[in-house]
């Protein structure tokens, strides 16, 4: 009898504590690569998202603790859909952080159907701007990045002949399309493009082909470990042309890679020395926690979580439920957001408009980049 009473009490306590956690916590989801060759990006993205959640909780922006439920996509569309399904149908989150073009495109249908907001801060395929009103981007897309870099390379450096080495996925295809569209209008040409499988690791043959074309610029459209292998093998195999890429190069691996010295890449323009309170707090706290400077990816996912906190705060003040539909309506009703990098606004298609900067890897091994130019 006593055992039954004790177990009933224990059960009741368990139920009560579970209910109190659910009542107090406000949960959002994230579909990031946490394992596999692109897991390094997951760590980077999480550091930004977690810092934003910490700031929101420290400031008491919401009625409960903001928590992020992480699911592993392995940067693969199929795994991404499995993760999104769990977050939407089991956890019931109204807001999901997404990364990588292929994964983002794969989960967008479910986001639209379930009226769950999905926010991308890492993928840059231009078609991510057209995935429905529940899909938002807090990162400038490849059309902006490729255009800015091509203009700089052609107009400022006088380069005319480009070769593209691109991974055979939606991201790579979109960069190929952008270069084919952009270069002729600048008076330059794409002399050859080399498609590579996402799993490829051996690029000495690609380097031989690139060298035989004698381009001025080799644009690398890959990510993760693969882009580092491409850069190393291009240089090891005698390719001396200017290497260029997009924001995927803003990872510590590239910044510390000797062979990447002098490589140009683009990110959205953020003044890390800005006195704007949101940016300053983000930079100071990140440096204090990690002992190094943040990158644009970290700022993007900080911003993605901060956008949620700002919208949810207003919804709670209005006694409205925090749902995907209400978050969308509130975003449309909000003209500007105070985010890292300054005051920004969303375009009609749910993509943030931000200026682009061209950076150069200084190759000192200290993980620094050299600011080259900012473009609107």
């Amino acid at each position, binding site marked *: 009898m006593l055992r039954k009473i004790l177990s009933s009490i224990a059960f009741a306590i368990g139920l009560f504590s579970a209910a109190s956690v659910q009542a107090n916590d406000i949960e959002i989801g994230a579909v990031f690569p946490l*394992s596999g060759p692109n897991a390094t990006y997951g760590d980077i993205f999480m550091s930004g998202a977690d810092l934003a959640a910490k700031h929101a909780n420290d400031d008491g922006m919401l009625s409960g603790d903001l928590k992020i439920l992480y699911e592993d996509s392995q940067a693969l569309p199929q795994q991404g859909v499995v993760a999104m399904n769990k977050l939407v149908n089991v956890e019931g989150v109204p807001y999901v952080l997404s990364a990588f073009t292929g994964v983002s495109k794969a989960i967008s249908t479910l986001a639209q159907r379930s009226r769950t907001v999905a926010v991308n801060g890492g993928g840059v395929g231009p078609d991510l701007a057209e995935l429905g009103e529940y899909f938002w981007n807090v990162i400038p897309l490849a059309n902006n990045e490729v255009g800015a870099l091509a203009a700089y390379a052609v107009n400022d450096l006088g380069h005319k002949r480009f070769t593209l080495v691109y991974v055979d996925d939606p991201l790579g295809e979109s960069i190929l399309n952008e270069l084919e569209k952009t270069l002729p209008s600048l008076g330059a040409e794409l002399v050859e493009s*080399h498609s590579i*499988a996402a799993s*490829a690791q051996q690029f000495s043959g690609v380097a*031989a082909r690139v*060298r035989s074309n004698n381009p001025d610029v080799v644009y690398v459209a890959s990510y993760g470990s693969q882009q580092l*292998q491409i850069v*190393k093998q291009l240089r090891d195999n005698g390719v001396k042309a200017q290497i260029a890429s997009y924001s995927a190069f803003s990872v510590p691996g590239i910044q510390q890679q000797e062979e990447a010295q002098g490589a140009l890449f683009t990110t959205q323009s953020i003044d890390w020395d800005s006195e704007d309170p949101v940016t300053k707090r983000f930079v100071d706290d990140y440096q204090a926690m990690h002992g190094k400077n943040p990158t644009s990816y970290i700022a993007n996912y900080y911003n993605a979580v901060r956008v949620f906190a700002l919208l949810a705060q207003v919804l709670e003040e209005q006694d409205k439920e925090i749902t995907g539909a209400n978050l969308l309506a509130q975003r449309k009703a909000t003209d500007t957001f105070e985010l890292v990098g300054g005051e920004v606004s969303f375009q009609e298609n749910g993509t943030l408009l931000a200026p682009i900067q061209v950076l150069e890897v200084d190759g000192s091994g200290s993980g620094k980049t050299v600011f080259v130019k900012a473009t609107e």
Partner: protein
Amino acid sequence: MLFLQLLANGLQVGAIYALTAAGFSLIFGSTKIFHFAHGATFAIAAYLFHFALAGMGLHWTFAVAVAAISAVVFGVLLDRFMYAPIQRHEGSFFTVFVASFGIGIVVQNLLGSLFGRGFMSVATPLSNSVEVMPGLYLSPLNGLAIVCAIICFAALHFFLTRTFVGKALRALSENPELVRMFGLSPRRLSTYAFALGSLLVVPGAIFTAAGTGINPAVGHHVMLISLAATIVGGIGSLRGAACAGLMIGVAENLAMWKLGTQWSEAITFAILFFFIIFKPSGFFGRATVS
């Protein structure tokens, strides 16, 4: 000149493929164990070589010894403590495969946790190519990989044809019952096969760490190539696996001479399908009647 360059690249890649494929083929041919974790052995050897050289600052000869010992120990431990119990309980071929596959995934994640999930490479001037003829670039690693493969195969040939254990291993692949009748222990020979097969991945792992760089998933590709080379070369034929590995490496690179770069990997499987359809016994395998 592009053809010559691709041929030179292909010979280097093929030499590494040949060694790893020969290791897999030796294990599979002798023990009939589908050692999918052969790729994990490759990854362990590459990572520990990198760690010993860059992390601990050891001389490269000691780093090579660390890589070799770790590969052999890993292979032998797997044989003793995973495959042997499964076989004792008469586990099926599929059970062994799943267990081996699982070990591959565990090792990949362990390496990621211990050494980081990002890209690593050994910084060495040996990987820098120099222009030996107009348009033809070769690195010292190109030559070293080919020379090392030739030496390893010569030593392997000597071991298998001139030593008692080598002959016993060949006998094991032919007829395990006969080996027992001669008073030899197939289990002990299996351990030798794993030790030797695992040792054969070490040169490839070291050249990969120095040349293309490594990440925790590096073993998958190695495993796919080893498997394809074993089938193309003829199951159980070391000579066949080595030739097939070399052929696949050369074909992967030469494909880029006229075809797009995206066909490079596909060519491996095109060769594999060709052999499966038109010569299922492979280069040097013997046709069997079931």
